[in-house]
């Protein structure tokens, strides 16, 4: 059941790719693991960088939400600053996910988050505080990390 839907979503995204994103399957045999390359959006401190994300679709998909994680280190209030780079908010949370939600919405959501972090729903409290209280410093740090880790 899930196969058909995943295949459809994948081919649709290949036909009509989202702006600034490249999607591929690390292993052709496994439709449940996607790799996404996302360009740092213009006007954000991530501009000029390219970030690798991993999208994992559970076997219960679309009844359970996919998990999205940053493989490239990123300075962001909503992404854990560890080797997992995981995110857990909004539609990605089990109780907010609906089976009719689509992956393109998930990816657009991630991109929107790069443009505008949600500091009130943060996983990295320190970065969130800096974002709210000292935006200048935050932008400086985020830019520095982008330069260091997300080089093209």
């Amino acid at each position, binding site marked *: *059941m*899930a196969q*058909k*839907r995943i295949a*459809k979503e994948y081919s649709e995204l290949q036909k009509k790719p989202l702006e600034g994103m490249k999607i591929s399957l690390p292993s052709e045999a496994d439709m449940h693991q996607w790799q996404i390359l996302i360009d740092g959006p213009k006007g954000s401190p991530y501009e000029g960088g390219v970030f690798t994300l991993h999208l994992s679709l559970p076997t*219960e998909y*679309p*009844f*359970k939400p996919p998990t999205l994680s940053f493989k490239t280190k990123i300075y962001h209030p909503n992404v854990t600053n560890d080797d997992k780079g995981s995110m857990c908010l909004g*539609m990605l949370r*089990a*109780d907010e996910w*609906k*089976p*009719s*939600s689509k992956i393109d*919405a998930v990816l657009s959501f991630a991109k929107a988050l790069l443009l505008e972090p949600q500091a009130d729903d943060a996983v990295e409290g320190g970065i969130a505080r800096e974002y709210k209280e000292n935006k200048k410093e935050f932008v400086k740090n985020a830019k520095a990390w982008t330069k260091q880790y997300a080089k093209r």
Partner: protein
Amino acid sequence: MDSDDEFMSGLSDDGFEQAHDSDDGSMADDEEFDEDAGFSQDKDLKPGKKAYEVDFKVFSPKDIQSHQDKQIDEVSAILGQPSEATAILLRHLRWNKERLIETYMERPESVLETAGLGPESVQTPTTKVIKGFTCEICCEDTPGLETYALKCGHRYCVDCYRQYLAQKIKDEGEAARIQCPTSGCNRIVDSKSLDMLVAAELKSRYQVLLTRTYVDDKDNLKWCPAPNCEYAIECGVKKRELNRIVPTVACACEHRFCFGCTLHDHQPAPCSLVKQWLKKCEDDSETANWISANTKECPKCSSTIEKNGGCNHMTCRKCKHEFCWMCMGLWSEHGTSWYNCNRFEERSGLDGRDAQAKSRQSLERYLHYYNRYANHEQSAKLDKDLASKTNVKMKSLASTSGMSWIEVEFLKTASQTLQTCRQTLKWTYAFAYYLQRNNLTEIFEDNQKDFEMAVESLSEMFEKPTQELAALKVDMMDKTSYCNKRRVILLDDTAQNLKTGEWKFNVDITMGP
């Protein structure tokens, strides 16, 4: 107005069958349940009602169901909404009838909208086969696919709907708040739709979960915490009253627990004291207390040292520093006068001694109460083991003495009394630990002493070999009723003073919000 109270009274007068009741029964006086005098003087003076007793009712799962249905019917008639929608509205407003009616009368559309009952675009929902349909969830487009949509009109194939509902109910334990699978649509899946779609096994699970939210949502209802017990208790005691009353209730399954914190019966100690006491007993702070009372630190390297011999001449194992245990000064300065330590009265030495004495005193005080508390807990366990043997004893006594089964019932009564009394005694020690000393404390301790003596002598009788029990029957029955009497006296006295705020505690007993 506190709508809780209002609602409470609404509950008690619809009078459906009650499974069980507290000693003196009726909830009738709850109609005059006053906001600030939950337990008014008049109520205390009611004959037969002791100060430590509270009114409560026990509800079986069936009672809860019919109670729910009754509320739904009632509100459904007032709002002119079908009962399905009414149920959703009531759950949405956590069963606050008055608030629902009030807000519905003011602005029905917005209430319906937020409860997930937005404008309807389709009539009576049924499953349908629609030509050229593709399910948005599984992308299936086989002709003849059964589909279903809630009143919002968002249509999916029945298989997807089923899987969606199964996951919500089984995996997530969700019932009252399952929404339409469409992102952004907050339409609630009503139980009629659910009935149509899912298997019988899931339906019953769904009903259980719905009933659970009914009890969980209401402050005056609580589940009996005993394992596998399905009953709920209704009691009107509010959280803010818990520093004045200890609301012990008894379920139909015989489990006695506190309605305030759902822990095992802990009369006479109020919930907040129980919480503090348990935390204290659990904490390692007492270990630290022991260390500070029994050890000193090497003045040079700060290693912790326990004195294990009589001599005051200490040599630190670690750094080889030599010092006097008495004054903590350098041993070399003592010369030969160590036995008459002339630095003993020095200021620094005095302070050190004071601090140590204080710590030792507080430790001893704690241990005094703790040991007695723990002893009753332990004894209750032993008594319980004995109780499991009571049946055997009863049988053997019935056969050896020629007494009938009814005649040996006194053993069971004695065993139950022992359990209850030990439980109470145990908590009298935690209670006493937090009491400031005054005249009331003296009376309390006298009561405690009488009560404890009675219990211990009953416990002793209970342990006698079976062949002696027949001769002890009358004594034992007397002792049992005496124990009960002493327990009532103690609990009544403590509860009375708790209500009137006479007790002076050495900690704050007001519960947090």
